[in-house]
């Protein structure tokens, strides 16, 4: 059985782990390119929460998360990660955080184990801890037979799994994933979801963007919908239904309605 598979459906069991401490607190986050990409965005994600950020292409999801991860400098606003001011002390904030992009960026000439050794070294993890952890992570993601093969021949799904294992090897408190399931087959996607579920059960916070609404519906404790750089709705699935006054509707219908309304408002 895939680790954590059953746990995915037991969101209510996790409510005990979630605390009132914010894993992420974003206030007035703003970024302009030729037009506003993120527009005075406020966002709070509690520790131990699985938060899905949804939105159409170009809504500002990736830009928001890249600013949180320290890959883009915001024009205005503040970012607190586990109480650490990420703009004032980025090194401390990065120590507790991991970022996985939709395009797995790994080194073709390294093996998965070597890649994880490098990541663990960058985060200053004791090899006595990181080596068994790396091995276990890669095996749990189905990469056991490929531990000593260079990544250059890997499929996109395998590369994505290596990147994900790299994000988890330093045991972050906050994991930010931008479309992590893109390009994964059904089994790989289940492996990844299982692993993320396990992490959340252990108290880790996960923020994930996805276009697969079924994943958000099944896995997320709360869902945020972003359109034109602004958060247009937020809450549990049930809360979103109440907010929209459509108790029997699917997330997909709600999403389309919210995005349309957001686009009109913009």
């Amino acid at each position: 059985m895939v680790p954590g598979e059953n746990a995915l459906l037991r969101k209510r069991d996790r409510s005990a782990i979630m605390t009132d401490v914010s894993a992420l607190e974003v206030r007035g986050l703003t970024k302009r390119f030729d037009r506003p990409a993120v527009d005075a965005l406020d966002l709070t994600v509690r520790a131990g929460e699985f938060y899905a950020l949804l939105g159409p292409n170009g809504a500002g999801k990736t830009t928001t998360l890249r600013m949180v991860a320290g890959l883009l400098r915001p024009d205005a606003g503040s970012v607190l990660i586990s109480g650490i001011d990420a703009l004032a002390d980025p090194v401390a904030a990065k120590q507790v955080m991991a970022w996985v992009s939709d395009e797995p960026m790994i080194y073709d000439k390294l093996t998965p184990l070597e890649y994880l050794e490098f990541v663990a070294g960058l985060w200053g993890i004791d090899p006595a801890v990181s080596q068994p952890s790396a091995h276990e992570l890669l095996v749990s993601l189905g990469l056991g037979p490929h531990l000593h093969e260079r990544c250059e021949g890997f499929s996109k799904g395998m590369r994505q799994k290596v990147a994900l294992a790299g994000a988890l090897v330093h045991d972050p408190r906050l994991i930010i994933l931008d479309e992590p399931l893109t390009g994964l087959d059904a089994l790989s996607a289940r492996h990844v979801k299982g692993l993320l579920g396990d992490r959340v059960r252990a108290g880790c916070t996960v923020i994930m963007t996805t276009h697969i609404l079924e994943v958000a519906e099944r896995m997320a404790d709360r869902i945020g919908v972003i359109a034109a750089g602004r958060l247009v709705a937020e809450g549990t699935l049930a809360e979103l239904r109440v907010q929209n006054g459509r108790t029997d509707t699917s997330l997909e219908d709600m999403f389309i309605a919210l995005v349309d309304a957001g686009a009109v408002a913009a």
Partner: protein
Amino acid sequence: MSASAALSWFARHEVRLAWREWLAMMTGGRAKRKRAIIGLVIFAAIMHLPAWAVIGRFADLQPPLDKPTLIVITATIFLAWALMLSQAIESVTRVFYARADLDLIMSSPAPLTNVFSVRIAAIALSVTGMALLLSTPFVDVLVIGGGVRWLSAFGVVIAIGLSAAAVAIAITVMLFRLIGPARTRLVAQILAAIIGAGFVIALQVAAIFSYGTLSRFTVLTSDAASAYAPGPDSPLWWPARAAVGDGEVLALLIAFSLVLLGGVMAIFSSKFADTVAHVSATSMTPRRAPRASAFRGGSRQQALRAKELLLLRRDPWLVSQSLMQLLYLVPPALMLWRSFSDSSTAIVLITPVIVMAAGQLAGGLAWLTISGEDAADLVATAPLPPQRVVRAKIEVVLLVIGIIFAPLIAALAFASVPQAAITAIGVIVATTSAAAIQLWFRVQARRSQFRRRQTSSRLATFAEAFCSIGWAATAALAVSIPIAAVISGAITAAILAATWKISPRRA
């Protein structure tokens, strides 16, 4: 669409691709086409000045030519041919390994033999076209100074371009058959580097052993070379005779080249498809790395340095790219060795060669470590300040340069301690300058884009080249005329400062 129409459509497609690739290479993918062409015309016009300085005095040459002249012209043409061959081997290797449209072509209903015939012809045309472009200022100078008979030199360029492409295709396909697709890429690229530099270096080595000088012309114009050379009617002199206006020989040369290319197309077109299919199958075969015993501890910078060194070690393509620069170190190394047995003053020449090679090599390494970061997001989200990341990467460049050049400098110290000290300082300064320029102009890219690094910023490329030359000259002058070294060093430092002033990082 009929077969012939499809073929001509594909030929047009190839020409368009070649043109756009060339334009992107010339402009770095930014400038407008009109501006690129205007820039190119201006550049070509300016190139007439050095061409005049180099070749102007030969415009009056009249047939029949004496033996030393025949030898020098033939050697020059052979050098050009070797360089074209090197370029053509690169192009053919790229067709096998790097063209994104191969899957589309292979899965299309077009006859593959015809399609690859067109591709072979396109390679030949692009190699010849580039050679014509580069040779135009030189031939122009000869035509202006010596008359229209020199126009036949263009014919020689076409003939050697076509024959170089034909030989390159034959070499690459045969390499593939002999050693397989996994090794062909590396061997072909190393071969291209050796062929490109080998002829000049061989002449220099011969000159060092025979005359104690780095000048290759000393060998070519020597009595010994004339004594061993065949008579004036030998086919060996046909390219030289054709270049000075012998129309009959020129026609023969072009006909021979066309026959050679046609033969290669006929023999190898059908094998191209098999080769491409084998290459794509090989690229999917996993390569196992030696099992690491245990994760290593250490600081975060150590992790970065270890990663960079491992990637450099595992990149045979980079090795072949760097080989060209290191090959030029062979003659000075030999000269150094020879100078232990006599008191040749030519040993002074070693210093600029070493300094220049270090600067050039450092530029490439600095691009790979600073700009060519395949996991840029990972490094950017790691908990260490960007300055420390950059420092660790520059340390890798310095370390590699140190490993390569320290033995040469140590050997030089046995001949002359002051010269060794000056050379060491020159190497450090040239390396630091090259790394600084790469830092100021860094653009995030994948390591596989190394070949295009020079097109991403023309300014950085020129600045890097000028600084390498400048520091090499300064080091040479410091050994021989110290006061002149101060002026040369100041000029080079000014170039570096100006480069920093206009760099995007400063802005």
